[in-house]
Structures are given as C-alpha cells and as structure tokens.
C-alpha cells in the first residue's frame, strides 16, 4: 500500500463492481478490497459511493442480494451478478475498451 492511491475514475465504478462480482458473490467490503488489490492499490473505493452504487445496481436488476449470517452473528449483505447484470458487464466492458483505445490512439498521435 505504498503507492499513492486515487479515487475510482468517474463513471467506472459500476463497471468495476460488475467485473468484481462476475467472479463470485461478495459483500460490500470484499468488493472494495478486491478492487484495491487487483488495481494494486491504484484505486481506492469510497465506501459511501460503493454502497450507494450497490443499492442502485440492485434496483436496476443487475445484482441480486442475499443476507448471510457472519461469524460474529451479524448480518452481511452479499451481492451476486444477475443475467442482465452479466449482459450489462459485457456492454460496459466493450464500451470502456472502445473509449480507452480511442484515448490511447489520440495520445500516441500527439506523442
């Protein structure tokens, strides 16, 4: 955790959540940790934004939720990707790739 961390790029949080959940169902903290780990600490997820986004994605029907008991007898909410969520992930991935390629091409041209 020595590298300087930044906030998640505006508008990509949904994509990151969907991608993270495409591996396995997870609770909110797990998703945050996973994003940090995989980005090697580049992205730091704001918990408020994350939980709000989860609420929103669940409403949109892309995630299903499930309450599970934790070890210390508390409730934890687990999120899993739905079929429409998976389609949304594919769509957003393609969209993101398209944008990144375009930006990269622009940068290369400038260079």
């Amino acid at each position, binding site marked *: 955790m020595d590298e300087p961390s930044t906030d998640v790029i505006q508008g990509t949080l949904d994509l990151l959540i969907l991608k993270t959940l495409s591996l396995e169902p997870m609770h*909110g*903290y797990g998703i945050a940790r996973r994003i940090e780990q995989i980005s090697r600490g580049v992205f730091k997820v704001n*918990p*408020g934004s994350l939980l*709000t986004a989860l609420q929103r994605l669940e409403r*949109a029907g892309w995630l299903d939720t499930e309450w599970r008991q*934790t070890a210390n007898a508390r409730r934890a909410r687990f999120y899993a990707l739905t079929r429409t969520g998976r389609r949304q992930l594919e769509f957003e991935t393609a969209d993101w790739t398209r944008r990144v390629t375009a930006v990269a091409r622009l940068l290369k041209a400038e260079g």
Partner: protein
Amino acid sequence: MLWRQLTRGLRALFDRSGADRDVADEVQDYLEQAAAAHRARGLSPEAALRAARLELGNATGVREQVRGVGWENLVESILADLRYAARRLRATSGFTAVTVLTLALGVGATTAIFSVLNPILFASLPYPEPGRITSILEVGSTGAHNGGTFAMYRELTDRARSFAAIAVLKPWQPTLTGTDQTERLEGQRVSAGYFQVLRIAPALGRSFTPSDDRVRGPNVVVLSDALWRRRFAGDRAIVGRPIALDDDRFTVIGVMPAGFENVLAADAELWAPLQYDASLPVEGREWGHHLRTIGRLRSGVGIDQATRETDAHGRAMLEARHPATYDPNTRFAVASLHDELTRGVRPALLAIFGAVLLVLVIACVNVTNLLLARGVQRRGEFALRAALGAGHPRLIRQLLTESLALAALGGVVGAAVAMLGIRALVALTPPGLPRVGAIQVNGAMFTFALGLTTLIGLAFGLIPALQAARSDPQQELQHGTRRTAGGHRGTRNALVVAEVALALVLLVSSGLLLRSLERLFAVPVGFDSAGLLTMQVQIAGHRFDQDSDAFRLFDRALGAVRGTPGVAAAALTSQLPLSGDRDEYGASFEATPTRPAETYPVFRYAVSADYARTLHIPLHLGRALDDHDGATAPLVALISESLARARFHGADPIGQRLRIGPAGPYAIVGVVGDVKQLSLALNESDAVYIPARQWPFADRAMSLVVRTSRDAAGLAPAVRQAVWSVDKDQPVVRVATMDRLLAASTAERRFALIVFAAFALAALVLATAGIFGVLAGSVAERTREIGVRAALGASRRDILALVMRQGMTLTGLGVVLGLAGAVAASQAIVAMLFGVSRLDPPTYLGVIALLGGVAALACSIPAWRAARVDPANTLRAE
C-alpha cells in the same frame, strides 16, 4: 427493471425502519470487516477500529447517502412538505379558512357562471359544422328582425345558390288523443329540409322527404326520444304505426336520437311536415310573417356573400309581388343561428360575466393580500430555516406546496360552490333563455376550476417564496423580532384600494338594477292583478270543427267555473296580458272630414262580455260589453285610452267605426284604460276588445281569467276540475296566478339583479375583510410606534384618529377610482335599466354611504385596539 424499482421503493415507503435497518447493518458490517482486516495486519483492536472508521468516514453520512437512492425519497419529501403544510394551515386556521373561502367564492362563482353561460354564449351549437347554420331574416325599416315568409322561402329555395339546405318552421301544439291520457304536446311544423339543415338524422326510421311536404300530403310525424320513451315505452316497432293527434291519424316515420337538442324550440317533442298550401291568396294570413327560416351554407360560402344574394332575391321578390307596399328600407339578411338565438340575452349575460370576473379579481386580490401579510409575518421563520441549511429551492418548494394545498382546498370547496351555484342559477333562469337544457356540470368546468386554482396557488405561492429567496438570513434574523413590513405595506395598501374600487363598481351596478326593478314594479299594469288566476283552455279534435260548437264549449266551461265556490268573477280572452301572448292586427279608421284614413297596429282581444269587469280595467267612456253583443247583434268594440288619444285627440270616439284586419267595421261603444300586454317596460298599449262571437272565427285556445275571493293559486285545481266537468278531453295549460306572470315578465332583470346583488355582497364582504386585515396588520406592526406616540403625549383620541384616517384614506381612494369604474361599467348594463339614468345620483350616493359606513366599521376595531395600547408595556418590551 421497473418491477424491482417499484417494489423496493414501496417497501422503503411502507417499512422505512426495516429499510433503514438493512442499510445500518450493511454499513456496520462494512466497518467490522474493515476493522477485522486491519487487525489481521497486526493492529491492536482499538487502532484497527479507528483505522476502519477513518476509512469509512462519517457513518451517518454514508447511511444517509445510501438511503437517498430511489424515487421514494422524492415522494417522502413531498409528503413531508404536505404534512408540514397541513400543520401550518391548521395552526393558522383563521387565515386558512378566510383564504379557502375567498378562493372558493371566486372560483366557484366564476365556474358556475361560466358553466351556465358557456352553452348559451360560447359553445357552438350541437350540430355538425354548426358555423354554417344560419338564420335568414327580413329586417324591417325599424330594424326589427323577422323570421321571413313562405314567399321568401320559396324564392330562396328556387334561386339562391348560397345554401345547401333551407327550411321554414312554425310552432305546433297538437293534442295526443286516442289514449287514456289526453296530452297537449309542443311540436313544430317544419319544411322537408329541416333535419338536413341541422344535419341530424333520426335514430330510428327516416326523416322527411319533399314528397311528405306537399299540400294534402301524408300525415307523418317524427318523435323525440323523450316522447317516444314517455308515451310509447321506447317501442322500436313504433315506426310505421299510427298515432292520433287532434283526432287525426299520423304515421310515425322516425324517432330522433336521445342526444338531439332542438335549439329552435327546446320543448318540441314531435315534428310534422309543414304542408304549405301555396295556392292560398297572397294577401292572407298564411303568407304572413309567422315562420322562421334557417339555412345551411354551402361550403366556402361566407355569411356576407349569402346576405348579398339573399337580399337581392328578397328585394326583387317583394318588389314584384307587392309593388304597392314595397318598402325599399326593408332588407334581407343572413346571420349565424347561434348569434340570432342569443341576440336578446347577450348583453345581460355578458354583463353578468363581467361582474363575475370582477368578483374573481377581488378574490384574487384578497388572497394576494392575505398571503403577502402572512409572508411578512413568516420572514423570521424563513430566515431561521435558511440559516439551518434549508436551500432556497427547498424553501420555495415548501411554500409552493403550502400554496397548492390552499389552492386545492379552495378548488374543492369552490367546486361545491359551483355545483350549488349552477343549480341555483338554472332554477333562477328567466324564461326565453336559449339552451338552458344544455347547462350542466361538465368536465370543462372542472378543468376550468382546477386550472384556475392551480394558477392562483402558484402565482401567490411564489411571492413569499421569492421574497424569502432574495433575503439575507442574517439580516432577517436580526430584524425578525421587529417584523418590519418594508415596501410591502405599499403593495397591500394598493390592493385594498383596488378591492374597494371593484366592490363599488359591483355595488353601483346592482344598485342601478335594484332601482330599475323598483321603478318597473311601480309601473301600473292597468288592471288589478291581485287574486287573479289564469289558465289556457284549448279545444282539440274534430268535434269542434264548427265554430258554434267551440263557442258552446267555452260558454259552458265559463259557466261551470263561475259556479265554483271561491270564484268571484270569470272571463275568457284570446290573449292574456304579460303571458307572452302577442296577437296584433291593423286597426283601420276611415277618413273623416278632419282626419285621414289611418291604420294602427293594435292588440286584438276577443273576449267574453265581462272581461274588463273581471280584470278591473277601468271604463273611461261609454259602456262595457255585455251579453247582448252576440253573434247576430251589431258589431261593437272597446278601444284603449291610448288608441283613443292617438286617433281622436280628445274628441268623442263613441259611435266611430274601425276595421280590425279583415273584420268589421265595428262601432266603438266604450274606452277602457291601457293595459300592459308585452312587458312592464314597454309602452305599447293600443288595443281593441271585441266580443269573441263577433270575430270571424273562433280562437282555438282561450285564456280563462278568474277573480278569486281567496288564495288564487289554491283555487287552481277546483277551476281546472270545473272545466273538465264540461269536457274531460280538453287540455288546460299554462295555469298561473297573474302575480306570477307579472313577476315572470321581469324575470330577466330579476335574474340579473339577484346575480349582481349576490356578487356585490360578496365583494363588499371581501373588501371589508381586506380593509380590516390591512389595518389590523398595520396596527400590530406599529404597536411600538403607537406606544411611543402615546408616551410622548398623544391622546387616545389622537391615536384613534390616526388609524381611522389611514383606513378611510384607503377607502376614499378606492371610492374615487371605483366611481370612475362604475360610470364606465354602467354602460354595460344600460340595456337592463328602466326608468333610471345610469348616472342616477341617489344610487351612487347611497352606495358610497353604504361602503363608507361598512369601511368605517371595519377600521374602528383596529383603531380601538391601537387606542388601547399601553405605552408602558410597549416601551418595556424594547
């Protein structure tokens, strides 16, 4: 996923604590997971928890953030606004009640009047392409509109190219016979094209064809839906079956649809072809002006073009047919049927509409005033809420919610007022108002009322909201306790002046109408109306084709009525004063050495001998008619005083002779007093009275006038029974006391007066409330100043005068402005005035005195309150 949005949102709405617990649990779990992760990396439990808290940030903030997702939050905040608004409105129940009632009055009155006027004045006629339906008129040299003659109809159907269809029509009152229950019906005789002009086809059967409409053509009849249901049980097999009308067989050929509205004769329930005999002599009555002509314009033809064509054909026809009497000032015109139907009532109705708009304006002014006053009082509250973090949009939304809630309440109460108002107005409508049947509480009215309330609510809600948005909370809070009224005092004063002025306009208008009615009732009718009962007896059926049989029936009926207990005298007349009857003939006097031959239009009364005695019409000269003036006796007549004066200029008319239309000559045997025939307001009273048996034909309908020695209305059943005891098959209609006829003849003015008086009263109350509100507010705001004045030596009387002066200055300004307005507005009701100038000084002075008195009363309460301010208390409060 709309479904999920909906269910989750609803769950949050209905189980807020459950939803909140979910969010709290999730946040808590997040915190613990984070802490656990920190501990796993070797931090102490306390340090781990601290680090986790740091990572999460403000837990409450996060919970709020997550809670904020979803549409239900908007609903919740609106509900919260509404709850708050309801609390505020309940807390200030006096303000709420006054505002809601003011709005309800304004909205309700406007809506009621609009609903009543809409079908009459504004809505188009209930036929396809109604703009093309026209009335074809012959306009005499005096400007009088005439419905036209059969000659004009024939000329136009033969030659005019402007019309797709033309029809003539006349009233028809057949009696349905041959059933258990003889009934006199209202109907119309129409030429074949009538339903083509209206473009309404029967729901059952067929309409008329040209082959139905010829002399001695088939007896066919079309029924209205109402008549078909009432008398024929809605039997669909009625088409083709015969019914008996006046003892003749008529074949039913069609039934009109249920929704068919016959604007030309709203009461008509059946139609038969006109079957005009064109071979009758041109000079006869049949060719006279007793028809109405309507036409449907061809597409692309304008009213002007049709008028030019009709005028050309009409004049050519008149000149060719009646070269001797052709008057070049006579012209022919085409007018929209709608305009022609409403021509007589339009000025009065527009004046009423204007009056209700004034009421609405006053109501709006009053509401604005109330909301402004409240806005001033609430500035401190707004400032506090702004200081506590309520954003301006939030404040504005809150105020708009309050205003809309007020407007909605006002709208609901207003709708109730409107419905009651419509019912009252319909009950009050004067006879002769077209399309009264089409008046109803309709969707348009509700839209109108609702739109109105919403607009008022939004407009006035924004005033305090904008005020609050503009203001600087800090400054406001500092000033809060002192409740400065600022520049709004000026606005509110101006509004009160406007209210007083508008109220004065309405008061003056109703005052003028009241004086007119007073004058009208003071007009002598020419006979004694008290205790007179009237009804019309008609004879129906072929049994009375011989005039002598008709006379015998009338005589026996009269005898039976005279024998009824409670009847002091009874007589028959062919036309009844003030009943709507109008039967005029030309009375021609032969040339004498001193006077040329002259013809006067006169009312013809064919009467039984003691008609004048029964009505108490005074006999000025000569003798009355008596039973010796029979069919074979010398022809005699009474003339009215005005006719005697016009023709004989004070010379003795007794023994002089006159012809009445084709009949006569009659010898004048007496002169009687003038009688109002058409209306109290009209001075036409030239009349002749002749014995009924000396007229060339027997009138088929005679009015019975009965002088009673007790309650006239109560005697009606006995009198009717007496007529039926002679012949139970004769319809007896139009039963009314003479006093009721008299009242009905002034119905239009009375209607206008009642409406205006109601509005004026409302305006007076609102204006008074306005003056009182502003003064009371001003005294409350100036308590400190008044205390200082008192401390410095102002007496109670000084302070009383100070406040009274303030109030009366506003009233005075309002009166001055209102006078100018009233003078202008009186122009609009000039047609309804009688015997008073529209600038009648007593009316204006009386209204000013009334308004001044009421205003002084309204001022005196706040003034008295101000005078009682204790200087010690106010100064201590500083």
